[in-house]
């Protein structure tokens, strides 16, 4: 995953109505072994988001991050917090 970046003018979100995050659930998992690899041994962060659209309808979206990806995700949110505080 690329480092978080400042959203460009032509981003996908530009003309979309933004969703509101209603819930954020997380899970720290450990992949142990699989069909193709008996020795996986890696931790991952699984996230379940509940997002409300403009009509109030709530949809769930889940995704996974490796630990380094999570750390970047966290770093980006800290930066968002720092900026939003100063605006």
């Amino acid at each position: 995953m690329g480092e978080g970046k400042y959203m460009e003018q032509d981003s996908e979100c530009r003309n979309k109505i933004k969703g509101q995050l209603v819930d954020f659930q997380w899970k720290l998992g450990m992949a142990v072994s699989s069909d193709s690899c008996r020795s996986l041994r890696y931790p991952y962060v699984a996230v379940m988001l509940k997002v409300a659209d403009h009509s109030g309808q709530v949809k769930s979206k889940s995704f996974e991050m490796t630990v380094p990806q999570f750390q970047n995700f966290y770093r980006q949110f800290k930066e968002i917090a720092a900026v939003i505080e100063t605006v």
Partner: protein
Amino acid sequence: MAGEPEGSRALGGLLSGLARDAFHGQPGITEELLRSQLYPEVPPEEFRPFLAKMRGVLKSIASADMDFNQLEAFLTAQMKKQGGITSDQAAVISKFWKSHKTKIRESLMNQSRWDSGLRGLSWRVDGKSQSRHSTQIHTPVAIVELELGKSGQESEFLCLEFDEVKVNQILKKLSEVEESISALMQPA
């Protein structure tokens, strides 16, 4: 077979082709392609068992995610076997694993992830101002775009809006995740 220096290069190429086929999902790497490109003088019926043997060795190493001690022990055992590998071949395999281990492991990890992964994150902060009667109210909002996608599929974009309160709520959750990760990484 494949004991001379040219054989080493061919074997290196073979392992690379096998890895691209088995781990990195590259299509079209057939037995015939590998033979004709790397071992053109070897007849197909002789090449086939050789390829199977090398594929088996590479898969065993990758499946166990062998460290260098395990690798050495494993290759030594393979050399002692009837119809096993030569010491030159062991050297090539060892060199290959050392330089490709990380990338192969990453591919195996991606193969085992069936949910969407986070492909990208971008954001900006807007100072939204609204007029309430004659007073201007400034409520800064963060717009976050998450790019999600499953292996081999097109990305899906989630566009979310957060006010300062919400950002801090998320931060609190993320710090809980970080605490859990630290606890996990602590030696037992």
